[in-house]
């Protein structure tokens, strides 16, 4: 036992139980038979001497230098392995060199502010913009960023792209951040993952296989198909959307008989996307019974009409092909006219949504643009909303079959205005160059309509070009009308626009906010309402312009 430890033991027990140890060169030593209190004083004096000795004489311990650079990444045992002396610290293996530069100091400073909660919603945009510009998050901010990704799954893909190699290196040392490791392309494990993996791992495996060898993936699934539980069958079947081809038809047709309802639905949805399938032909037969061209003369004008007659009956075969007795949305209010859509209209929409669009170009002998513009009449009931059902059915079909020509026709034709969400979804099918203009057109169609917000919600950012102009114009329109309804629209609109509108629109909005502030300031005396709406509207606009400015500076820093 060292001298110091003897002192600690004696002090713990107390000198009344154990005498103070003797210290060879201490002056007080040698006097024996002291009182416990004197002993205590002596013990403290000796301990003081030893303490200063110990502190001043601190010797650096050696480190295990062996295996300095050999330990690769992910050696969790870096702290325990190959130490020359037991307990000696082992060097932490260096992180691999980065191949992209870190973001500039200014950009990093802004990221630090975002991570602390300022404009936190722009975080994904910062990360995406950095990755797009070939930059990574500076190492010092990684711990906070990885911690954010721990609680927010949506953020993880963006973190993976911007965290650099240092991020992975760090995540390997903290199990809380394990999501960063292997989150990219590799689902983990080799070919045996299909036999042994979890459902998610097996799905990832199938998706990867569908990308390179769709037939192989199909055969792998066929082997275990009968033994898989229904939710797994549905999850695996969903991977068929990758690399879907006519070769899958047989498998999908069989799946239409599956015990699982979700599996059957999924199979029919996939078949509906498959051009030239037997399924498509069956649907086309049904569809032709409901929709037919007819040449009519109305007010002296001879023209082709689209005559609609919703199916009168539902049968087993329809159900087998994915048109349920109560299709989704058949109880939904029927747009502005009110009242539920009804089962028959629901069947019609479902059938049309699943019918190959080529059916119509063949039947009418016209391009989609002209078909969309044809007048529609109901065969039986003059007041029925057949036109809407047809257009909605076509819109859903265009979305499902990813048919840009039909999408363009439906958007330009200005039809289906009472279900504008269906149109908003079509924007995604258009070539990127057309999207802004088409979206702008759509917004002008629905402006002043409560659907506007729901439409905008479905248009992903960035809103630029004509679309940005249209949004600014809409904001201006809403801001200048001082009723409560517009006030609500305006605040909602601002909230939607702050992350999606391109920051270049900022100055125009600032001018608008400024004009609004001065106007409400001068007109305040006449009515309380104007002042009230003025402040709410200006505040919302201010918030929006601040966010846009923040994003503008952010993107400038990241592209510099």
């Amino acid at each position, binding site marked *: 036992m060292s001298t110091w430890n003897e002192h600690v033991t004696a002090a713990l027990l107390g000198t009344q139980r154990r005498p103070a140890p003797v210290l060879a060169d201490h002056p007080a030593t040698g006097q024996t038979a002291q009182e416990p209190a004197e002993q205590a004083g002596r013990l403290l004096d000796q301990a*003081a001497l030893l303490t200063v000795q110990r502190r001043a004489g601190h010797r650096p311990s050696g480190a295990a230098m062996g295996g300095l650079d050999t330990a690769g990444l992910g050696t969790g045992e870096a702290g325990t392995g190959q130490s020359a002396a037991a307990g000696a610290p082992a060097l932490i293996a260096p992180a691999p060199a980065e191949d992209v530069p870190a973001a500039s100091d200014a950009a990093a400073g802004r990221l630090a502010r975002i991570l602390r909660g300022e404009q936190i919603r722009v975080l994904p945009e910062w990360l995406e913009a950095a990755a797009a510009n070939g930059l990574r998050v500076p190492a010092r901010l990684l711990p906070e960023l990885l911690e954010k990704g721990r609680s927010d799954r949506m953020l993880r893909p963006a973190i993976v792209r911007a965290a650099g190699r240092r991020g992975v290196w760090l995540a390997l040392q903290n199990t809380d951040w394990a999501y960063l490791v292997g989150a990219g392309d590799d689902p983990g494990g080799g070919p045996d993952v299909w036999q042994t993996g979890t459902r998610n791992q097996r799905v990832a495996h199938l998706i990867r296989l569908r990308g390179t060898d769709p037939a192989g993936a199909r055969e792998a699934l066929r082997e275990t198909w009968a033994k898989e539980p229904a939710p797994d069958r549905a999850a695996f079947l969903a991977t068929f959307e990758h690399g879907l081809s006519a070769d899958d038809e047989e498998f999908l047709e069989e799946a239409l008989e599956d015990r699982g309802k979700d599996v059957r639905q999924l199979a029919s949805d996939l078949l509906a996307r498959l051009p030239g399938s037997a399924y498509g032909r069956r649907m086309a037969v049904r569809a032709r019974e409901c929709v037919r061209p007819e040449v009519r003369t109305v007010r002296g004008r001879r023209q082709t009409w689209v005559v609609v007659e919703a199916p009168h009956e539902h049968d087993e075969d329809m159900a087998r092909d994915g048109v349920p007795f109560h299709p989704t949305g058949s109880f939904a209010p029927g747009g502005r006219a009110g009242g539920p859509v009804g089962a028959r209209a629901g069947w019609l929409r479902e059938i049309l949504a699943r019918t190959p669009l080529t059916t119509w170009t063949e039947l009418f002998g016209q391009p989609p643009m002209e078909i969309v513009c044809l007048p529609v009449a109901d065969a039986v009931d003059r007041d029925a909303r057949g036109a809407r059902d047809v257009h909605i059915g076509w819109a859903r079909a265009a979305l499902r079959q990813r048919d840009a020509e039909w999408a363009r026709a439906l958007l330009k034709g200005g039809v289906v205005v009472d279900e504008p969400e269906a149109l908003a979804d079509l924007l995604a099918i258009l070539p990127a160059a057309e999207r802004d203009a088409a979206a702008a057109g759509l917004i002008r169609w629905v402006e002043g309509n409560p659907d506007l917000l729901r439409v905008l919600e479905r248009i992903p950012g960035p809103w630029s070009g004509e679309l940005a102009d249209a949004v600014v114009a809409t904001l201006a329109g809403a801001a200048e009308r001082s009723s409560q309804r517009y006030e609500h629209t305006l605040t909602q609109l601002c909230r939607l626009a702050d992350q999606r509108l391109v920051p270049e629109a900022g100055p125009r909005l600032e001018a608008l906010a400024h004009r609004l502030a001065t106007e409400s300031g001068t007109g305040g005396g006449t009515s309380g309402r104007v002042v009230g709406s003025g402040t709410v509207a200006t505040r919302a606009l201010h918030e929006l312009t601040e966010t846009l400015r923040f994003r503008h500076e952010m993107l400038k820093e990241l592209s510099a």
Partner: protein
Amino acid sequence: MSDPADSFDNVSDRWGREQVLGLAPDPAAAQAAGGVARPAKWSETGTDGEAVWGECQGSGKSVYRTCADLTEPAFRCSCPSRKFPCKHALGLLLLWSDGTVGAGPRPGWAAEWLHERRERAEKSAERKAAAGTEAKTKDPKTAERRERRVDDGLAELDQWLRDQVTHGLAQAEKAPYRMWDDVARRLVDAQASALAGQVRGLAAVPRQPGWPDRLLEEYALMRLLVRAHQRRDRLPQELRDTVRSRVGFTLAQDEVLAQGERVRDRWYVAGVHDSEQDRLTTRRVWLRGRESGRPALVLSFGVPGRPLDVSLVVGTEVEAELAFYPGAQPLRALVAERLGTTAAATPDGTSIREFLAEHAAALARDPWLARWPAVLGSVRLARSAPAALHVVDADGDSLPLRPTDPWRLLAVSGGAPFTLVGEWGPRGLRPLSAWHEDEGVVIL
């Protein structure tokens, strides 16, 4: 492109964002300040190098006039907030820090306030000076009374320390905090405030691993201080100063400025640590002289309503003359005079062996030293069995790190060599800042 080239010259004069937010009385105020720091909310802003002012659109119709005197710094705002500085003052400084406040002449209200302030400051300085001379004239009797009180208090502490060791330290593990608080309170009554703070801090020791060693060390060093104070007449002057300051005899700043040793150097601001006790925040700023190689410690104290000193920014270097508090191992100092502007700089590191030798020499002069600043060059991080971190230098020597959140340090180092600034104490090295080639200075 939009920035004029000459704006770079002003950057060093304007404070950084972090520096401004460092003034915030609490995190909520810092957050709110970010919201106020929007050009759209402000009008009539301006600065003339000494002060920044502006009018802020508050909620509703109210407009607040805000002004910050940069020399102190001091703030005034017409808003009703009781936080100090308020979010408007902080927001204004943030705008200024971003470079969005243009130069201009002071408006009447700002000039008036600044003038009032200066006058008040001068008057109080005069009063203080007058009081100082007064205090010195009636010194002897009060001083004598205080000496006696301290003697009695220390004798009582000595008795208590010996009692602890007589009955055994084992009972400390279950003792309530009150046990140390009572002793500390009696020391406050005896006007031995520094020692009182030391005792109060001990209450937490028995809750830490390895506490018996630590507690005995602390008790032993206190006993050493008591004994040294009892023998003060036989000690050399410098050591006597050390003992007196460790007991709690304080020196006024004026005295230090007037009598303290002056050292002129380029001082590198190595690290900062804030600690809080009873609503009082103590900020330790560690400096290192480039020429002299001397360490220095600048303390500042923040209470609600008075912000901490933010004038020394980690990772910068300032040419200045420091005035050291007297003692056998001078360490604490005041910035007596700044002789140049601050500029970003890189630290000079030493090896672990050199650092330990320096620390041993310092302990030989002042055995009560609880922490000593380390600037270690090209160290790497290492891990020992129970996930405890160490730094290892190029010679293979290592020092243990105090257990803290290691992630930022790990992230910055990436396992590669870097320069580490820390406080070395009995429980290990507390990392304060790191300097890495790719990352620059990072505060930990």
